[in-house]
């Protein structure tokens, strides 16, 4: 069974934010406002984090990190959900979210050490015109439920169905999340970590590869490649 993973090459990433916006476009994420931002309620499943700025001026090392859900293989969040609304799928390794079952207790949001989860504080609103660009493949969440990056799981479903309809196997290029598809700096890769020959497996074995907060034992499937210095 494939284990889908993502590799982000920080050497090439220019922190442009295209991944952030394409995720919001693809996944019907409600747009924000100055008030929401000030209250910390902007939802962006893929976020750009100013990770660190180290070194003495002017020999500075500035890293801005694109951070989706880490899709851990040992997620702290699924253990604590009282209703199993979030779960680790054995089929594809994606940590899923059942919006219809979530009771909004937000335990998973506090348990996640990477703070990748978001909550719908109000019913998501769009102006009438903006509703036109909602993606029909992705459900619109109601108020009071938790949501997070799903590696564009709906695209996997479409790709599988397409492959089935065409009578062939699923090829690695068939399924790619919106962020990886859009990245202008070619800094993101996606594929099956269990396939020894896939590009993500190869890159995951690189000496530059690291995962965020590996020492916590969450086994994230988002792998970063450190800058070449």
């Amino acid at each position, binding site marked *: 069974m494939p284990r889908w993973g993502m590799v982000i090459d920080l050497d090439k990433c220019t922190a442009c934010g295209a991944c952030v916006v394409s995720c919001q476009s693809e996944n019907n994420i409600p747009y924000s406002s100055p008030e929401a931002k000030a209250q910390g309620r902007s939802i962006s499943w893929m976020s750009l984090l100013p990770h660190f700025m180290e070194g003495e001026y002017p020999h500075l090392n500035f890293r801005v990190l694109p951070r989706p859900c880490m899709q851990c293989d040992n997620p702290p969040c699924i253990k604590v959900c009282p209703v199993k609304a979030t779960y680790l799928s054995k089929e594809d390794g994606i940590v899923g979210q059942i919006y219809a079952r979530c009771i909004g207790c937000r335990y998973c949001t506090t348990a996640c*050490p990477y703070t990748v989860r978001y909550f719908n504080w109000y019913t998501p609103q769009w102006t009438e015109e903006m509703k036109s660009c909602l993606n029909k493949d992705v459900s619109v969440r109601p108020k009071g439920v938790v949501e997070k990056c799903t590696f564009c799981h709906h695209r996997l479903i479409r790709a599988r169905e397409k492959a089935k309809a065409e009578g062939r196997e699923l090829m690695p290029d068939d399924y790619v999340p919106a962020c990886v598809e859009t990245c202008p700096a070619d800094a993101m890769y996606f594929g099956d970590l269990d396939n020894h020959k896939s590009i993500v497996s190869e890159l995951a074995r690189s000496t530059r590869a690291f995962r965020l907060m590996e020492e916590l034992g969450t086994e994230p499937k988002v792998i970063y490649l450190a800058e070449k210095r």
Partner: protein
Amino acid sequence: MKSEGISTEHLGEDAVLLEPIIKTGPRFYIAVFILSAIVGWGVYAYLNQFDKGLGVTGLGVPVYWGIYITNFVFFIGISHAGTLISAILRIAQAEWRRPITRSAEVITVLVLFFGVGNILIDLGRPDRMLNVIKHGNFRSPLLWDVTSISLYLTASTIYLYIPLIPDIAIMRDKLTKRKWLYRTLALGWTGSEKQWKILNTSIAVMAVLVIPIAVSVHTVVSFVFAMTIQPMWHSAIFGPYFVVGAIFSGIAALIIAMAVIRWAYKLENYMKPLHFNYLGILLLVMTLLWFYFTFAEYLTTFYGAEPIHMSVFYAKFSGAYAPYFWSMFAACFIIPFIILCNRKTRTITGTVIASISVTIGMWLERFVIVVPTLANPRLPYERGIYTPTWVEWSIFAGCLASFILLYVLFTKFFPIISIWEIKEGREKALPEAVEKIKSYMPGPAKKAIEEVCE
């Protein structure tokens, strides 16, 4: 005294214990009115939240939990007052427990509803709360909470109800109003020896059962935090720390409740300075114990100096949450310690002041546990201060008012001091105590005691 077909002569001076049930003064109505108004306001605030969503609170990323969870832990903590104190004192056969037990047990039974209530208020989708039963995940500490608290509620209710039966029987026999209620609840109590035996055995069994359940309750509440891997939550001593804190805040709440009842219903004869003195000593012991745990917790963190833990630590010690942290410390340790360690200040007034301080301090302690860890996540975020909104404060006020209102209503239906236990104490306590002392006191003391007893 006689009034309207009620003969309470045989109760003698204990008749005053039934007075609140028989008579209702204007003060009661005023109190109920004010409390109901506050409750109404709290309900309005909640309906506002139910309609619009949790956005009306001050929560946001990364502080996903705030006042509601603080209240949850706080109220569950207070629930340890009743049952635990009452059960421990019963097992220890401490005679001075008699006027205290019922008021303590009522606190427990009532406050548990608000503990659970705050969790339900905090849910994003309270309409789906039954999913916890339908799709329960037993790996989750919240499910452990559900189980444990349900068990505790059941056990406490039983433990409140059983010793209440003889008193209900008294009311059934003596009072004219609500006879149907008391007759039903008395379960055909006649006071026969067999019944007394069953009663005493049940009480003894429950007293023993309730203690581990009570300990488990606040332990699993602490596990909600301790089972995550967040800095300054993932701590091994959270279990005992929370239990100690719970007993601590419980005793304080109990003292306050007792003082209020004593003043309102003129029960000075029953709740003597001695009771407050003893409870005050217990409170002092808990203060010291609380300090010990807190000290251990913070020293360990500080000494280890792990960066992510230290950022939370400094947030509490000198950063944005310092005012809360230091107020908590003053309210939980400094003020109670000063008041309670001195016999002269350990009066009723003194213990009540100390208890109020402790109650506020323990609420702050919960707040200081929940919020700073969330406000300092491992990955960098815009770290703002969590400012609760009027909705959250209103609901908190509503919960407190509801609890007090229900408590007051209870005193109107059932005697808040256990009549039969007082009677039992008066009749049996002294001879039993003499027997006990005689059994272990060495030498010719036997004779000296007999002389004194004459």
